[in-house]
């Protein structure tokens, strides 16, 4: 599973870093660092993180592939 975060949209609310701390992390106070390839055991957490993003900046799966191209 692949994810893409639209970093123009991201405003550093960090909701994803709470919900899937092994995939999303804050670099400093606001900048987001994330792993684009999601291990299977993190899928559920990543989906929850994408749902919770206040600016809907996280694209998951096929959606990520299509929009990232």
């Amino acid at each position, binding site marked *: 599973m692949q994810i893409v975060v639209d970093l123009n949209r991201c405003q550093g609310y*960090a909701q994803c870093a*709470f919900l899937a701390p092994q995939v999303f992390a804050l670099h400093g106070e606001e900048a987001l660092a994330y792993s684009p390839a999601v291990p299977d055991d993190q899928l559920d957490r990543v989906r929850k993180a994408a749902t*919770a993003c206040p600016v809907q900046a996280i694209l998951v799966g096929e959606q990520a592939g299509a929009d990232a191209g």
Partner: protein
Amino acid sequence: MSTETLFRRIADYASRADPYPLYAELREHGAVRQDDGSYLVGTYDEIAALLHDPRISSDRRRRTVPDALGPGQDDVPPAFIGLDDPEHDRLRRLAMRPFGPPHSPGRVDALRGEITRIAGELADGFADGKRIDVVDDFAYPLPVTVICRLLGVPSEDEPRFRTWSDSIVAGFDATPDEDPEQRLRSATEARRAMALYLGELAESRRGHPTGDMLSALVNDEGPEGSLNPIELMTTSVLLLIAGHETTVNLITNGVLTLLRHPDALARLRDDPALMPQAVEELLRYEPPVQMLPQRTPLADIEVSGVTIPQGAPLILVLASGNRDPLRFAEPDRFDITRPDNQHLGFGSGIHSCFGAPLARLETQIALTTLLPRLGDLRLVEDPPPYRTNQVLRGPRHLLVEAAG
């Protein structure tokens, strides 16, 4: 009726079960001046813009027009919810250190198992075939147990917080036309008592950390130092009250809304993986914080063609923005798979809800725990009796019983 009385009509207890028609009236008129000199805004784009506007203060001491909330409690300084940057930013970051990223990224996630266990135990305690009060038997004890555990507050002291918390929240009960003096005095006293209690508890952890947030707040020294004793008290009071008065309403509103929408309930029972989206929709459709009553412009600003003067009380009605048809298709429909749901349930901008990740997790787990039982339950009273508060809105009790 005159739009100058809209806030009074929203605050009227008779509107509590369904304030949404009044919000629709509010949206038709853009920014609306009330006869006491305060202003209401209820459209999505305008609220979102104001929440990101540095000319809008959260500090009620910046008001020049008296408001229904009464004078500021100037003997105890505001917590970060009632301060502006840079003070707000410093205090919020210090409070975040033991709670979330970047310093404590796994803290909330690590509570998952314990929240599931507490929710399961509460649900197992429901007596068979008897009426259940979703509020007293489930939605209240769950977040309260969790916030006490997280902060490191002994749960046997919980009845004392409940009394204090009730008084403090009644202080936000901005019912116009009522003499607020007694109510505000009780709120101030309760806030002081809670602050002293939490301050002493934190002090007892200095040098003796017990792995909780109070211990971390009093012992951890970051590059910016740590909270001073007064800041520690106001911050921990804020977190404890927020843990008492908000998630309870989100969970209860969730049960109420699902019982009113059997189609959505059936879908969730078939596919519980939809729960996170359902909770986001709930935050849009029935947000536990209906409005932000303590904003104030620092300069004259124009909103929807209306000039709101510097110092006037400005009330942002989040629950109305969440039903704005210019932003959400079919806004009055509860749609658990709604796409692009950028609701205002947790606010937006620099004051966006500090506890949002915990509230989400608790509510997702709470409703998932109840899901197998909800299909067999029916509401005893619809609408249920509501709390008086129009800001932190939710049922006071929610009686359900076995259907059939």
